């Protein structure tokens, strides 16, 4: 940061951009809550909610956390490692949760058709 003037720092983005990102985040959240309100079956809920959450996370990281405007090598240091690590965790735990489910005895009185995965 040696060559920078004290008063003006580079920070890409404008008030307008950040407010529009915020509105997108609110709309996606509102959509998620609406799906809960109409009581969509849990399996659809899971897929749509995780999809929406990943989009929201991407918006936050790219614009609010400014990663989109950083150097490519910083992005490549942070993002792929995280994605691969999380996928590896899911690789083991996601299939095994079905095994554990089938081992359950006696048969549950209320077979809740739900499973959960995918976080970022």
């Amino acid at each position: 940061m040696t060559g920078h003037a004290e008063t003006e720092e580079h920070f890409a983005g404008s008030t307008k951009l950040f407010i529009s990102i915020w509105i997108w985040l609110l709309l996606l959240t509102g959509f998620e809550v609406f799906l809960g309100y109409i009581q969509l079956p849990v399996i659809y809920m899971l897929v749509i909610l995780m999809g929406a959450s990943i989009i929201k996370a991407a918006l936050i990281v790219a614009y609010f956390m400014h990663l989109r405007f950083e150097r490519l090598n910083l992005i490549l240091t942070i993002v792929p490692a995280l994605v691969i690590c999380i996928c590896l965790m899911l690789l083991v735990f996601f299939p095994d949760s079905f095994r554990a489910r089938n081992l359950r005895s006696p048969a549950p009185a209320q077979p809740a058709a739900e499973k959960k995965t995918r976080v970022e």
Partner: protein
Amino acid sequence: MATEAQAISSDWGGGRLPYRVGHRKLGMWLFIMSDSLTFSALLIAYAYARASNVWPTPFKFYPSIVFSSVMTLVLLSSSLTMVMAVLASAHGQKSKARKWILATALLGVTFIVLHMIEWRHLISEGLTPFKLPAEWAEKWPGASPLFGATFFGITGMHMFHVATGCIYLLIVSGRVNKLKHEDVEISGLYWHFVDLVWMFVFPMIYLLSIDMTK
């Protein structure tokens, strides 16, 4: 300086600032990486416990979901005020930046207060980390008692991050005249990360546990 400029002109060049960010900012990014893996592990453990057991889905749309949606709104808005603080700081407007940071911390405290009300409500119903309220156990026979453990564990861990973030932001707002712009930006990185985690906690803990029984 000239060699450094040459070195960083390519995306693969090194130089003294290989990522073109200060060492503190790089440190925060590395912390965020490790912290996201912590939260991923917690959420995946929760998903695993939930998928392999009968799991209670106790939250009524009103008041629980509406209440937690308001909490989400508060946290999302705090991210906007934080980015405004960073923007003001980038333009050298220190006092404006301080006001936005204080607004962010205030929203953070609001979030904690709302969350505490939620916790108190669940605890008064009889939920503990290893035991379900009698009413729930009756409604979902054979349900795993770990609902409380995952709920208090994950939301508690998140609330701890929000509380730490509030203290962090108060310190930054107090020292904003002495700090460089990048230091304000770093506190922003932490705060947005806390918001990001809630974007997964809210749907996974609340929206997927809506009580659909009449």
